[in-house]
Every structure is written in C-alpha cells, then in structure tokens.
C-alpha cells in the first residue's frame, strides 16, 4: 500500500525526521487557511499516488493569497498523469542550499534491505544514477536486519563534498528512516529531496512510503485504510472482493488466474484488440468469487467480449465455472465469452461453460483462445 506524501510525512515526523510545517487541503479555502498559518511563500503539492509529479506539473509555488487562490483552484481541478487531484499538501517553502537523496528498499536479488544515498537529489535522480554512478552510494543491511550508524557513515564517506556536520546529521536521518523501516515494513521508504538548509540543517521535503501489503495486518502503528484510498471505483471493488483489478482503456474484459497468465493474456490481446482490464483472481477460486469477478468486469461500459483464462491447480475451476454461468443466466449476457480452463476437473468445467453458451477452447496456448475471440468480435 502506497501512502500519500502527507501521510508519510506525518510518520517520518513521529520518528524524529525533520519535516516542513504543512497542512492538507481539499478546497481552495482550506488551502488559503493553511497557507495563512504557515506564512508565504508556500508550495502546493498535488496528493496523487504516482511518481514524477513535479515534472507533470503537480507542484507549484504561491507567494501571495491571490496567487494561492489561482494555483489551488487550478491544481484541484486538474489531473496528474490521469489521476484526479483531490487533496493538496500546503507546505512551508524552505530555502535550499543543496538537495540530497536517501532511500531504503528491498534488493530482491540478494534478499536484503539496501540503503541508497546521493549528493544529487531531486527530480533527475534516476538520470544521475545512470550518468554519474560515483555520486550514488549504497550499502546492504545483513540478514539480521540490524542497522548500525557506522554503516551509514562508511557509505556516506564514499561520496565527495560531505563535511563533518553533514555526515553526522545525514547519518542521524538514515537511522531514523531505518526505524520507520523496522516499524512499518515498507518495500520502499524514501526522501527525495532531503534538503540541506543554509544553516546546514536537514529537512525532508518529500516522503515516499509503500508498506508491504502482506505485512499490514501486523504493523502495530496506525495506518490509513487500504481500500478507501483506491480512487478508481472498479479497482476499489476489486480490492474489496479480493482480486487484483487494473482498469485499462479497451473493450475486452479479462479474468485470469495468476498474474503471469494475466499479463501474458493482456500482451496477446493487445496485439490485435484492446484489453478493458487486467484481473487476477489469486489462489482460491469459488463460484461466488467468479460471479463477483463477472459482475466487476461487466461494470465497465462498452465491453465487446470477455476472455476467461484459468488453470485448476489449487483452484477448483469447475466451481468457478458455475459462478460465471450463474452470472450469464441471471443477467442475460449477450456478448461473446471465450473460456480456456485447464487442469484438475477440466472436462466437467467445459461442460458447465458450454451449458451457458460460453465458447470453450481446449488447447493450452492462450494465443489460440484469443484467435477465437478475434473471430467472434470481428475486426471492427
């Protein structure tokens, strides 16, 4: 679960990391009030869960109430990378002597946490990593997951242009950030930029925190609601019924068991048609779950066909087929439905599908099923 910047900043602050004065606003009037309390100039930041906000125009400065009114109105009625801006973070504008970067993530290949730091923070950090790798330092935490400050000092010592004061205060911030990691079990925990003030102090001007979904139930510190924050109503409904639904802009509905099979299906559909969604059931198919999956994908207007691609390993797919058939019969579905369902009890599954007019493909290759789908929807 990705937290909004304002939520992550609150968590960083509670863990001792210096952060700017700030407030959250959902309307222009609220923004005006927060800015009045902080004092001008202020920064207005769109609270959307997507990277690269700055370059996409989601971060603006306001030096006066008049300017704030204009900027806040514009931001609150805009989209950033397709996401509506529902909230603004109104922030004290700090004086910047230098911008640093620090982040902690999981290195999937070594299976260890890795701490990354750079003297070149800001929006172009990934570019810096490519062009000037000497400006990036990284250190792995060992499998005990214990972190000691000397590790940060050693790592930062490899970067040029760091004085003793910065080394000490930066090491402190890394220790505090590691505390956040221990408490919240994030997959990513990042400050970019970590600003050096003219007096040499540090302040976290941005905050990224993505908590491991599988660990949420055991995190002992308060976290915001996981379902409520999903802005797309179809994706929210997917989360509610326990499947992964991603809304896409096409007209072919998809239900698949397994993320890999779902991705392969969208890849192959995408060659000739356009997928309306990605849907992955995870393990544990039941008749009720597939009924709800049908209900969910059919909520998307203008569907031309549905493709069901499931394997019965842990999943009782014959049960799933019953759910699909019940939906078709109750809702008198007219668009073509193609199903490829293989594995345990496949023959029984095919019979159930066929009883409701579903086109069953019995070959293993998804490509063959999508050929069939293509014939059925025509080329228009």
């Amino acid at each position, binding site marked *: 679960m990705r937290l909004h910047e304002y939520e992550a900043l609150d968590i960083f602050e509670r863990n001792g990391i210096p952060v700017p004065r700030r407030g959250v606003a959902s309307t222009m009037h609220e923004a005006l009030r927060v800015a009045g309390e902080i004092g001008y100039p202020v920064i207005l930041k769109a609270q959307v869960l997507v990277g690269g906000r700055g370059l996409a125009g989601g971060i603006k400065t306001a030096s006066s109430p008049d300017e704030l009114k204009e900027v806040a109105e514009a931001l609150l009625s805009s989209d950033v990378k397709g996401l509506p801006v529902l909230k603004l973070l109104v922030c004290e504008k700090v004086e910047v002597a230098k911008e640093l970067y620090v982040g902690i993530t999981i290195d999937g290949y070594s299976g260890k946490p890795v701490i990354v730091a750079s003297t070149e923070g800001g929006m172009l950090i990934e570019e810096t990593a490519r062009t000037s790798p000497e400006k990036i330092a990284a250190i792995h935490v060992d*499998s005990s997951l214990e972190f000691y400050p000397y590790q940060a000092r050693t790592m930062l010592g490899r970067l040029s242009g760091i004085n003793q004061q910065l080394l000490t205060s930066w090491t402190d911030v890394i220790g505090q950030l590691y505390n956040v990691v221990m408490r919240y079990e994030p997959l990513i925990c990042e400050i970019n930029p970590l600003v050096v003030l003219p007096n040499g102090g540090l302040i976290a001007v941005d905050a*990224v925190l993505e908590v491991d979904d599988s660990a949420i139930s055991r995190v002992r510190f308060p976290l915001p609601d996981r379902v409520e924050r999903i802005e797309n109503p179809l994706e929210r409904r997917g989360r509610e019924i326990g499947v992964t639904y991603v809304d896409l802009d096409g007209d072919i509905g998809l239900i698949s068991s397994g993320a890999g099979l779902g991705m392969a299906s969208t890849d192959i559909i995408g060659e000739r048609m356009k997928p309306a969604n*990605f849907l992955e059931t995870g393990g544990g198919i039941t008749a009720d779950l597939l009924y709800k999956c049908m209900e969910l994908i059919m909520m998307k207007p203008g569907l031309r066909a549905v493709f069901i691609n499931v394997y019965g390993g842990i999943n009782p797919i014959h049960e799933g087929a019953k759910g699909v058939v019940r939906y078709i019969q109750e809702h008198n579905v007219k668009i073509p439905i193609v199903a490829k369902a*293989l594995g345990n009890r496949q023959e029984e599954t095919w019979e159930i599908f066929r009883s409701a007019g579903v086109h069953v493909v019995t070959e293993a290759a998804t490509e063959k099923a999508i050929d069939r789908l293509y014939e059925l929807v025509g080329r228009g």
Partner: protein
Amino acid sequence: MSILMNDSTRVIVQGITGRIGKAQAHWMLEYGTKVVGGVTPGKGGTTVEGLPVFNSVQEAVKETGANASVFFVPAAFVLDAFMETIDAGIKLIVIVPEHIPVRDVMKMRSYAMENGVFALGPTTPGILVPGKGKMGIMPASMFAPGRVGIISRSGTLSYEFAGILSENNVGQSTVVGMGADPVVLRNLTDILELFEEDEGTDAVIVVGEVGGEQEEKAAGFIKRRMTKPVAAYIAGRYSPQGKRMGHAGAIVRGASGTVAGKQEALRDAGVTILDSPIHVADWAVKHKLS
C-alpha cells in the same frame, strides 16, 4: 533424470489437515509422489489420506525418513514452520502459500542459505517431474515426460508452456516454479545451474515477467556458463506503467526490470526470445526436442 526431486525424495506435507493441504496431498499421492506423512502442530496421531500426521517436523523426520517438505501453512505461520523444518534437517522445501511478508522471506532465505537448504517460493506452484512425482499444486494433466526443463516465475504460465509442449509431443524433464514474490528463496540462476548439470535435460525454457532483475542476472550466467539451448518468454509488455513510486530500486538496478531490458540482456546471452507462449512449439521442433 531430473533436478531437485528423484526416487529417494520422501515428502511431508505441512498443513496437511487444512482443506488445501488435504486435497493437494491427495493429488500428489495420486501422481505417484512418495508422500510419507504430514505435520500439523496439535493434530499429531491422526491420519489424512492414509498418511500419519505428526506434531513436529522433527518427529516426522524420525518416524518416516522424510527429506523434503511442501508447505500449505497459513502465511502468518510460515516463518516459524520454515525455521522448524530447517532445524529438523530437511534439505528441500517448497513454499506454496502467498501473502507472506517480505521481511519473513528475507529471514527464511538467509537461514536456508546458511544451512545449505534448497527452498522454492513463496507463491510457487512447486516442482513437478513428469510421470514421477510432484511437490506442490501443478495440475498433472499438463505435463509429459521428456528432456526440456522449465523454470517459471509465474505458476499458471508454467502450466501453459508445459501444456503447449506436451500437445506438440515435447516432454519435460522437470518443471520448477520459482515463486512470484519480490524476494524469493532461490534465484533463477541457481535453478539454471541445476538444469545445466542435469543429464536428463537437453534445453531450458525461462518464463519471466516484468520487474526485478532475476532475468538480467540469469543472462550473465547463461552467457558465461550455459551450453544448453535456452528460450525465454517475458510477460508484461502491455502491463500498465507507474506502479512503482520510489526511485531506490531503479537507482540500484539501473534500467533493468523492463520487458525490453530483460529481452535485450537475454538475447545478448544467446537466448531465443519468444514473443508469445505459442512460439515455444516451433522452437522445440527446431531444436529437435520432441
């Protein structure tokens, strides 16, 4: 021949008294796997599918001579059961469950490495040696005995590839699901190494997907060490971007993680890139694998 499992593999099922554990124990036995017992703390002394259930792994090992274990344990209890299994001396472990916290997986991984244990998962369908046995949930009907090895990050795509090969009379030596989580207990490279050494395997198929750097690292290994032909499919070309928020991963890994980046690294290592699973049939014919 095969990798990981052979005639002396004696399997216990952890979580055998649960609904899924029981059903899967049945399918594994039916496939011919030497399943010798099960473990569920508190249910010792009972039987499931005619198999003895023990309270601890140590007891199960002592009574049955088990040397491998497959997990159908609820995610919250997997870490504990895993440590117990390693301490009881088991050397091959398959973790089927999903939704295990990454922190637990990191601890499991390092403990397995320290103890020379080969563990797969989490979120893996397991291992299947066609016609011989299986540890996990792979549906038997998709597979046929032969000489092609399959390693897949995705469970269901491993069935898809095996199914297409089987339809074209190309059998498999061993099919391995490595697990789909951000951290897995064994990397792709380790499994490739086993296939390279296996006398029963003539060629290998790698089924990867967008994200992480397993395929990029494997490309380095293939270039340096592999003599057998390798084909690869990477899922996720049309997957929506923008799922990733922070930069730390990208900074450490550079350009890796994209489908194009993975394909390029693998192609550079001499691997045949398959644009769609169905193309695996032509590749197998070309390499005379049927």
